[in-house]
């Protein structure tokens, strides 16, 4: 009788999330016993949690199914259909774990400099990762919304983590107010979907939406509100205003984390919503997505040109990257979705790499996020300068770096589906983006150094930089493995 309510599959499917939760609580407890100079052990413990969670996912990419002796099964359902673990979910869970691990690595030194090195930071980061995982595997509106809120509330807290820093407080407050507003809009759309179908299960919603007459105003309102909420979460224009402020004000290592993990999770939710419950009303949301994608690329790329703060510039560049990824949804075919998958993974490595360099620039009295702070970096620390150059090239999408592969598939899919105009616009904006990325490069390579402060490459940052660099170059030079994995992933959701 018990099996009717709860089964071992439920536990196995959630194993990574459960492990992360346990380690988050463990970090909170052990933090009490640590002396101030031992606080780095919190990071070690958090990393161990991420490691165990990754181990429980099994060998890349489909270990979980093999582990349960269900190698033939494409997807595992648990909690009465509330979550579904398919290769799509597992791909994203890997992505979140990688983002969390690299962010923890670059946080250690930074938090020590700020004098805010406490266990709560890592605990919240791990719990945010749990929320992201739920977003990637959720199949039920309530579950998805709880996962979303778990993720964003954690990020609000991390954004305002530096209590003595006014910029951090301001960013957290802005992000919280706008974020709560957008969650409300999204929830309104979700409640309309529930009202239209009488169920919170995405698949049941999908079938009842497809039976509604074309042009039903209720469906229209539901689509618009859901799109509004989702566009806010990925930072698309016209819901992007929070993003540069939050990126600039948040602690460097939190900016790194939130530009990668939560963004990918929001895209996972967006893809799931567009491909399952809203698939039958593609005609309604397609013009909306096209308009938003163009506006996002335009504002993101043009506003980035005038920025003098590197974090703010990367914030606008993150907006423009969201625009490119939305183009993959516009084409909506296999290559387009494959492009988004690869793009998100690649973006995690290259953006975390670039942010790691910025974190290394943080010294006792220098915040290190102005373009002027990068002046003459090549004379002070050639390694950091060259690494930054590679990550910026990758962000711009220049071969042979990984950023090229992500953009390639998205542009390819646009041409396959006949969106030539969009493809041309997107390529033109890549040229614009080169301009502002090279503002940093010229500052690093051609200007005189204004001070003698050498960036501190702590062991954690070295490791994070090494991994990011290796993956950025590896995926760029030998993309076949990730293309294959992303292909399987897309096949699992398009079925």
């Amino acid at each position, binding site marked *: 009788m018990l099996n*009717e*309510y*709860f089964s071992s599959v439920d536990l196995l499917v*959630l194993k990574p999330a459960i492990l992360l*939760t346990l380690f988050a609580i463990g970090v*909170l407890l052990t933090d009490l016993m640590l002396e101030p100079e031992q606080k780095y052990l919190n990071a070690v413990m958090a990393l161990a949690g991420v490691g165990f969670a990754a181990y429980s996912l099994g060998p890349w990419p489909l270990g979980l199914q093999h582990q349960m002796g269900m190698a033939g099964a494409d997807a595992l359902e648990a*909690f*009465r259909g*509330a*979550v579904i673990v398919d290769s799509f979910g597992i791909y994203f869970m890997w992505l979140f774990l990688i983002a969390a691990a690299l962010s923890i690595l670059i946080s250690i030194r930074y938090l020590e400099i700020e004098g805010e090195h*406490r266990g*709560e930071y890592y*605990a*919240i980061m791990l*719990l*945010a990762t*749990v*929320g992201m995982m*739920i977003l990637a595997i959720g199949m*039920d509106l*309530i*579950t998805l*919304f*709880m*996962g979303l*809120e*778990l993720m964003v*509330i*954690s990020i*609000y*807290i991390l954004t*305002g*983590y530096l*209590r003595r820093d006014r910029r951090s407080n301001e960013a*957290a407050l802005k992000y919280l107010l706008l974020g709560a507003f957008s969650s409300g809009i999204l929830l309104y759309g979700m409640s309309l979907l529930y009202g239209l179908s009488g169920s919170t299960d995405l698949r049941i919603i999908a079938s009842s939406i497809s039976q509604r007459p074309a042009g039903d105003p209720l469906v229209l309102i539901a689509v618009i509100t859901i799109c509004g909420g989702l566009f806010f979460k990925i930072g698309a224009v016209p819901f992007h205003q929070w993003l540069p402020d939050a990126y600039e004000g948040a602690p460097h290592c939190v900016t790194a984390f939130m530009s990668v993990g939560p963004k990918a999770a929001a895209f996972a939710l967006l893809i799931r919503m567009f491909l399952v419950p809203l698939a039958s009303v593609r005609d309604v949301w397609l013009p909306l997505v096209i308009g938003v994608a163009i506006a996002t690329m335009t504002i993101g790329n043009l506003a980035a040109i005038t920025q003098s703060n590197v974090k703010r510039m990367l914030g606008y560049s993150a907006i423009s990257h969201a625009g490119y990824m939305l183009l993959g949804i516009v084409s909506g075919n296999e290559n387009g979705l494959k492009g988004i998958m690869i793009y998100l993974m690649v973006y995690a490595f290259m953006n975390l790499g670039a942010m790691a360099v910025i974190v290394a620039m943080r010294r006792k009295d220098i915040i290190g996020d102005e373009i002027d702070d990068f002046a003459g970096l090549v004379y002070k620390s050639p390694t950091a300068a060259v690494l930054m150059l590679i990550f910026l090239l990758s962000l711009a999408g220049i071969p042979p770096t990984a950023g090229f592969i992500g953009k390639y598939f998205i542009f390819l899919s646009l041409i396959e589906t006949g969106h030539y105009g969009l493809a041309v616009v997107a390529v033109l904006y890549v040229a614009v983006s080169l301009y502002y990325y090279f503002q940093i490069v010229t500052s690093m390579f051609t200007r005189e150094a204004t001070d003698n402060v050498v960036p501190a490459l702590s062991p954690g940052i070295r490791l994070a930089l090494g991994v990011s660099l290796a993956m950025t170059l590896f995926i760029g030079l030998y993309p076949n493995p990730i293309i294959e994995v992303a292909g399987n992933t897309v096949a699992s959701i398009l079925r």
Partner: protein
Amino acid sequence: MQSVLPSLFFYALATMILVSAVVTITRRNAVHSVIWLISTLLGIAGLFLHQHAEFLAAVQVIVYIGGITVLFLFVIMLVNLDEAAKKKQFAGQWKIVVICAGALLAELGFFIFKGAEGFYFAEPAGGSLQPNTQLIALALYRDYLLPFELASLLLLVAMIGAVVLAKKDLK
């Protein structure tokens, strides 16, 4: 078959709710107001019980009377009561109040006058009179077990966040 006792209960509870509610907003002393609020909420719990919603009645007592009013009392203890008692109790917007109340009364009067035809009744909620505590338990612990557990994590994060952001100095 129709017994007169249920209506008696209803009217007794309704009187208790209405009288307590009026007294709640007219007391000058905030602590007295809260005590009367408890009486109002108890009356509502009684109404739930009357409708065979045992779970809601219990939750009403535990959450509202046990939790929220205690919170109110804490807040009242933190503010300066003597200062507040000297202030004018009502804003003096009598005209607006009379207009709003008049509109509401007219609306209610219209529907009472029309009787049951004025409403579109859905299937009466208590019609089948299933044990609703069990239904709620099944929804929470079976159908929506995962979101229910996630809510606990959400609250944990919010609690850690409040401590991290608001604690004075951790050194």
